[in-house]
């Protein structure tokens, strides 16, 4: 056997060196119980190979230890293969299942507790005292009283549907049908109950044979029976069955509660039952079937059409809005009705009368025509503030209402009179109507007298220059840019003397420019649309040349589409 010396020799190490180096180590090891301790359980020869140095991997002989047993603070609860009765069954079949057994000593108490709740099984209580053990004869033979008849948790799933019940007279009086015998009706109701109103199943299993035919086919196969049924009356469809059953249900409901006394839920149900229409159902199913039987091409086409339609409708509303806007702009401003409408004396008299009547109906004996009474609420409020103390926004509103009622399409600003109007407002003072027109000057006169009317006087001082500047500003920078170019093209200087008239002219000009820009935009859109259609038409024509089959339909549809998409701009 090779000793450490041999190994050293082989590896060309100096024989004496190592022991000297490790000698103190060894001693220490002996005392400290560290690495140097001679490992036990190792071959002497193997140990010798280590030499004096401690092995690189500590070979330590460890006493085998296992994980401590987990400490459980409870006793595992025993389970019991115990018999039970399902109360949903009428035959008292006893089956067995695993249930957790109540804990050791408390068993008796708990079981009896469980059983006490039942009340009607005294024997079971006694059984519980016995330690929950159940004696029982053979499995099939039911020894009911020995089994703790605890409530079986799944019994609650034993649901049954209410079948309509009626007496013979009731049947004769209300439910007779030429098509249905009493026997078959009963059969139907039985079947509905049995299959929980699953109509497809009921229709599938519906196999009515009146007593006399039944006997002979008793042990025939399914095929026989089906053949037999085919030979007889026409097979009833699910809808026929439903119709009959619902009808009976409705009748029975009526018998229990007259229709007039039903609560809403009942009534709704009754309505539904009574109104069931098999023909309609059949039709619906036919349609559904057709839907099912569409070919792939049809489906594709439908999808395409739908997409197209969607495109059209979305575009339609947008176009509509744009066109409406353009139209509104193009329309010549209607003559301001203010003075023109009331320029004949009869008309004025009428107006007065109306106003007078309206005013009289109010407590306040005052007729006031607040500036901008037809304007927005805020304007009215502003006027109210400026006006006499008695004037409240509500009364202004009332006036507006009365004016709206009579004056019809009176235009904003037409009855507006600047400071002059305010002065007329005497609190509690009656304004004689004929004076009214005198305050409205003809445009020329107004110009001559330097009278100007204002929609709204903002408080504070403003410069007209600012107004001019503002006019040039549009909402978007692009639009502003466009307006500026247009103005430049027209050679309008950047700075003009902002007299009232210049301002007006300027405003009109800018208005026209924006209108023009808008029109340009619409034009562009229409041209594009036209291009698309042209291209589409080109495709259609090409297709037409390819196959001459479905043209008629296709063409009509295309025309429709085009029409939908391109109604004449101004209808």
């Amino acid at each position, binding site marked *: 056997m090779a000793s450490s010396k041999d190994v050293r020799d082989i590896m060309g190490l100096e024989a004496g060196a190592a022991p000297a180096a490790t000698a103190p180590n060894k001693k220490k090891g002996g005392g400290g119980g560290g690495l140097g301790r001679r490992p036990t359980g190792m071959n002497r020869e193997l140990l010798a190979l280590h030499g004096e140095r401690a092995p690189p991997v500590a070979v330590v002989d460890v006493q085998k230890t296992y994980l401590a047993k987990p400490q459980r603070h409870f006793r595992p609860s025993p389970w019991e293969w115990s018999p039970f009765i399902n109360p949903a069954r009428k035959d008292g079949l006893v*089956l067995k299942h695993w249930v957790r057994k109540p804990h050791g000593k408390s068993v008796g108490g708990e079981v009896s507790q469980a059983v006490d709740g039942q009340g009607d099984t005294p024997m079971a209580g006694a059984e519980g005292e016995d330690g929950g053990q159940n004696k029982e004869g053979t*499995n099939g033979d039911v020894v009911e009283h020995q089994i703790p008849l605890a409530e079986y948790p799944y019994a609650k799933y034993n649901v049954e549907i209410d079948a309509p019940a009626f007496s013979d007279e009731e049947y004769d009086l209300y439910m007779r049908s030429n098509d249905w015998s009493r026997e078959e009706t009963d059969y139907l109701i039985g079947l509905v109950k049995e299959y929980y109103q699953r109509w497809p199943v009921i*229709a599938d299993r519906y196999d009515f044979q009146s007593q006399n035919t039944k006997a002979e086919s008793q042990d025939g196969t399914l095929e026989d029976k089906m053949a037999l049924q085919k030979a007889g009356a026409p097979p009833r469809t699910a809808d026929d069955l439903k119709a009959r059953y619902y009808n009976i249900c409705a009748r029975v409901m009526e018998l229990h509660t007259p229709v007039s006394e039903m609560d809403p839920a009942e009534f709704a149900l009754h309505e539904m039952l009574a109104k069931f229409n098999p023909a309609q159902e059949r039709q619906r199913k036919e349609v559904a*079937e057709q839907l099912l039987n569409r070919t792939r091409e049809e489906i594709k086409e439908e999808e395409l059409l739908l997409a197209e339609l969607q495109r059209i409708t979305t575009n339609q509303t947008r176009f509509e809005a744009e066109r409406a806007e353009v139209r509104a702009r193009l329309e010549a401003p209607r003559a301001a009705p203010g003075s023109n409408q009331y320029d004949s004396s009869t008309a004025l008299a009428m107006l007065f009368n109306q106003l007078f009547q309206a005013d009289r109906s109010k407590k306040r004996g005052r007729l006031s025509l607040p500036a901008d009474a037809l304007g927005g609420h805020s304007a009215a409020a502003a006027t109210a503030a400026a006006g006499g103390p008695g004037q409240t926004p509500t009364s202004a509103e009332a006036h507006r209402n009365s004016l709206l009622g009579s004056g019809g399409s009176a235009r904003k600003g037409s009855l507006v009179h600047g400071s002059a109007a305010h002065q007329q407002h005497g609190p509690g003072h009656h304004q004689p109507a004929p004076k009214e027109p005198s305050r409205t000057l003809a445009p020329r006169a107004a110009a001559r007298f330097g009278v100007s009317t204002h929609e709204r006087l903002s408080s504070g001082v403003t410069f007209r220059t600012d107004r001019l500047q503002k006019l040039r500003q549009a909402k978007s920078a692009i639009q502003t840019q466009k307006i500026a170019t247009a103005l430049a093209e027209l050679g309008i200087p950047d700075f003009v003397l902002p007299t009232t008239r210049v301002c007006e002219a300027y405003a009109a000009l800018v208005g026209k420019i924006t209108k023009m820009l808008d029109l340009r935009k619409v034009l562009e859109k229409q041209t594009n649309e036209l291009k698309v259609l042209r291209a589409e038409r080109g495709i259609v024509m090409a297709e037409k040349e390819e196959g001459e089959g479905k043209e008629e339909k296709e063409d009509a549809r295309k025309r429709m589409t085009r029409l939908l998409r391109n109604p004449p701009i101004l209808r």
Partner: protein
Amino acid sequence: MAQGFTPGQTQAPLANDYAGDEVAAIVLDPGYSTIRAGFAGEDTPKSVVPTHYGVYEPSDSAGPELLFGENAIHNPKKGLEIRNPLNNEGIVEDADTTAKLWEYAITSRLTGSTGSARAIRDGEKNGEGDPDVDMDEAEDTAEKPLADSPLMMTEPGWNSPKAREKAIEIAIEEWGTPAFWLGRQGTLAAFSAGKSTALVVDLGASTTSVTPVYDGQMLKKGIMRSPLAGNFVSDQIRLLFAQSQPPVPLTPHYIVKSKTAVDAGTPAQAIYHEFGFEPSASFRRFEEERVLTEFKESVVQVWHGPGRFMGGPQGASNEEIAKGLQGRPFEMPDGWNQVFTAERFKAAEGLFDHKAAVTAPDQPPPRPDQTLPQLINASLQTTDADVRTQLLTNVVVVGGSSLLYGLTDRLNAELTQMYTGPRVRLQAPGSTIERKFASWLGGSILASLGSFHQMWVSRKEYEEHGPNIVEKRCR
């Protein structure tokens, strides 16, 4: 309290949470190829027994001996015949043998012959001397194999009323089961896929069936079946083998003693067993069938498109394309081997396309209405348009033969081709076990539901109403 737990204790999930309540019911699912049996609530049948059985008549013995189970029927013996008690539609022909076979399937692995295996006890004896009750009882009924277990059996949807009555008679009178129920294989397969409304397409060994299931009930009038199933594919392979040039030798395992590797297509060089007698034709056929099943598992593939295999323009076949695809090698038990290319698509094409079936003078082509797409269509046509859409989105494909490579994809393609309007959604369980044992699994789930226990037909009810009660209760 009903479950016997006390408040404040650590609690297992309430039984209601998963609605399971196991009563150690046994589920028996007989098929044409195998009989599956196991405990309800488990996820695989513990006992899977071939339906084929052996009739062994040694010359010296008095009567024939019946051999059941894999271990018994694969040894060549003189005078051993292999039979199947079911007819080609999966209906019981030979009731007596079937009963014995079923009993074998149950007792060999589940209950043991005494039926007392389930008398289990918790170690917690209270010293009151009662724990032995179960034992006494077990001894009482020891002769009956099922005295302790309710039995749920499955049957094909087209089972005859007579066969159904026979089943309950056997279960209650011969096996002594306290409670019995007969479930339809289609419905149960739907349950196994977690659906209560489904169109179940079951490709078994002898029959392919399509069963519409609505809300947990099968629609009888919609059940369609055809013989184009596993055995049909096997027969197609036989024809393909016979018609190929040179013919492919079909050698069962039992003949071969040892083999040596040979080149593809060259004759086998093997040493064969000497029996001194000729094993019966039925035995040989049965053993050949095993080789064919291997072939089906590893070589046969359903044509994946484009179109049908014979569906090129003007009925030309896609054979050229198929030849270009990678072939698959197959080695017979005697070492003969070859790479199959286009042939492997032909074997199963008949399931979809009657014109593509391989024919022989004694094997006429199948009818077009027997093919899978037509079968499904016929079944759907019997249902309401409303129900039809629901069924089409819940097509469940099960059965051993649905494991043919590429079958579900092809079926999906055929259905979407056929029904363009409604959405078609095909579902096939991923695992082999769930496919092969779908109806067993469904039964296992159903029979372990707490809410199911009111459905059992108890022995008392049977005694009161007679066997006809299955017709009323197990619809």
